[in-house]
């Protein structure tokens, strides 16, 4: 009986070690399954390689920047025009400089020309989503990441994106911000 037990023990230990290895083998197996079936692969999911790009069409983008009267900021796009395909992920940059001697909180508001393009201008990341605080003399480069929805009508060949910065509060004390001042 003892010899039989030792034999069974050996077999079961081999199974145990095999299953321990199997746990680790699941790692490459998992990635292989994901690759073969095309699930969960980061590149395919991201907008960089999206299949929605309409490469038959070109749309000219024009970028414009303004500041509201009384806001002592210089604000300009780093590129004036760009030709893109609808569906393509595009990143552009704007630059803003606070020329005054105090910290100012501003917020940019976008507008579009033609206005009906607004519904198809899908912004993924934009400095206009949040208020921007600039210290005295500070300059900042800010990105806009967006996709032009291919569903936009084929008769639109040029879209203008225009930002206007508004002063929403002069930051004289830090406590002002913490109180969460309403836009003013």
């Amino acid at each position, binding site marked *: *009986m003892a010899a*039989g*037990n030792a034999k*069974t*023990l050996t077999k*079961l*230990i081999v*199974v*145990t*070690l*095999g*299953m*321990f*290895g*199997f*746990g*680790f083998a*699941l*790692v490459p197996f*998992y*990635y292989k399954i994901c690759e073969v*079936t095309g*699930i*969960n692969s980061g590149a395919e999911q991201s907008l960089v390689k999206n299949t929605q790009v309409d490469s038959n069409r070109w749309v000219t983008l024009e970028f414009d920047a303004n500041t509201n009267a009384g806001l002592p900021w210089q604000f300009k796009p780093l590129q004036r025009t760009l030709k893109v395909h609808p569906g393509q992920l595009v990143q552009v940059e704007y630059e803003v400089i606070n020329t005054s001697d105090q910290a100012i909180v501003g917020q940019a508001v976008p507008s579009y020309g033609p206005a009906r393009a607004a519904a198809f201008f899908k912004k993924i990341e934009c400095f206009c989503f949040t208020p921007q605080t600039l210290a005295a003399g500070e300059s900042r480069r800010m990105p806009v990441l967006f996709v032009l929805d291919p569903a936009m009508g084929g008769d639109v060949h040029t879209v203008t994106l225009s930002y206007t910065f508004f002063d929403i509060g002069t930051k004289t004390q830090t406590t002002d911000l913490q109180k969460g001042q309403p836009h003013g």
Partner: protein
Amino acid sequence: MSDAAHAHDDHSHGHPSGIMRWLTTTNHKDIGTMYLWFALIMLFSAGTMALLIRAELFQPGLQLTNPDFFNQLTTMHGLIMIFGAIMPAFSGFANWQVPLMIGAPDMAFPRMNNWAFWLLPVAALMLMSSFLLPGGAVAGGWTMYPPLFIQGGISYDLTILAVHIMGLSSIMGSINIVTTILNMRAPGLTLMKMPLFVWTWLITAYLLIATMPVLAGAVTMLLTDRNFGTHFFNAAGGGDPVMFQHIFWFFGHPEVYILILPAFGIVSQIIPTFARKPLFGYASMVYATASIAILSFTVWAHHMFAVGMPAAAQLFFMFSTMLIAVPTGVKVFNWVATMWKGSLTFETPMLFAIAFVCLFTIGGFSGLVLAVAPVDIQLQDTYYVVAHFHYVLVSGALFAIFAGIYYWLPKWTGHMYSETLGRWHFWLSVIGMNIVFFPMHFLGLAGMPRRIPDYALQFTEFNQIATVGAFIFGFSQLVFLVLVLKTIKGGAKAADRVWEGAEGLEWTLPSPAPYHTFETAPVVK
């Protein structure tokens, strides 16, 4: 639970007494007893955590705990109940009963058996002491999902090591059980004549050997992600946290059958005894158990329908999960058919067994509801899930453990337990249990999330009902403790064949079972 004095009478070659007897023992009965006491202590520890959780949830808002401590409580309650209470209790049954039921003198590897047990208190100490460490115990849920589990403090490392140790203990115990059952059966006891408890444990042990190493691998990867710069699950390093869930549940779903198959075995011993009829459909019970075990490897992703999965995969896991209801239904049918036209009596083991059949079936049905992928997306991580798994684990696994204790305690101690106390324990438990967990179905359907210390006002009434039930259920377990202690100390002398309808080798032995049994193997016709 054999008493030391009696053991000495029977034992010819002297062995240590006092604490050293228990530390060095290789006797399957001693080790079985230690497993069962360990499980009871863990049941009370994790049960106390459950009562703290329920006390916090008595009202909305934060009363007793802060959210972090609350999360520690839910995490540790889960880990300790599963790895410290239910699994060791079943190992205790296996140690006591498998040799007695197959006519073997002891387990195949007595020294490894001693090791397998004594690893458990070490692991439990590591888990429990992590409450005292900076940052407290683990609070990432018993499922140990990254990224939370990669980010925690020192107690997370300690918990991973404790899981390793408990896994090692289970694997050693399982190897012992498989070897004992395969090689040491009495002459004439063929596989298809084995008592069903032995069958279910054989299959459970195989499940443990196949899945515990996978869990060990998964937590090893967590450990190296935390400390050695690997990126298995760390998305920032190119890893994938969802992969952990796949590996974990590849272990985790067979694990839930590890927690219930021995319960099926215990109930399959008890119902024929008190129905005074042979088990209906013995062979179909064996095949049903085996098919549940095999199918359990194909359903893991139903725990993660909400992580984002192609529709084809959701359909596959949904249907394979529903398929498990078929062999489970065969079992429930056979238990009912065994009772049908039987000469039934309702002693405490039978009461718990019948409650098991009814309430486990409720848990099974709510499991079927959750198996439906579109429904599960709605119910994922709500109290409906909590209700479901407590119906299968409390009124399932735990009630079967109680039933088994009442059934075999006279054989172990030589004394009959108090039937009056047993009935008090049964009725308080079964009523309390339903008051705690039934309202949770409604809470879940109404959208109350699990693992949250605070809740919206409209959930208050059902939570208060559940908390009252939890305290009834929790404190009624003290009745059980008193009953067990009284039975060990004394009581009416138990007959060798304790129950009129009991069949099997263990009942041919005197009560209490002598320290050494079946030194010459019995012959089974």
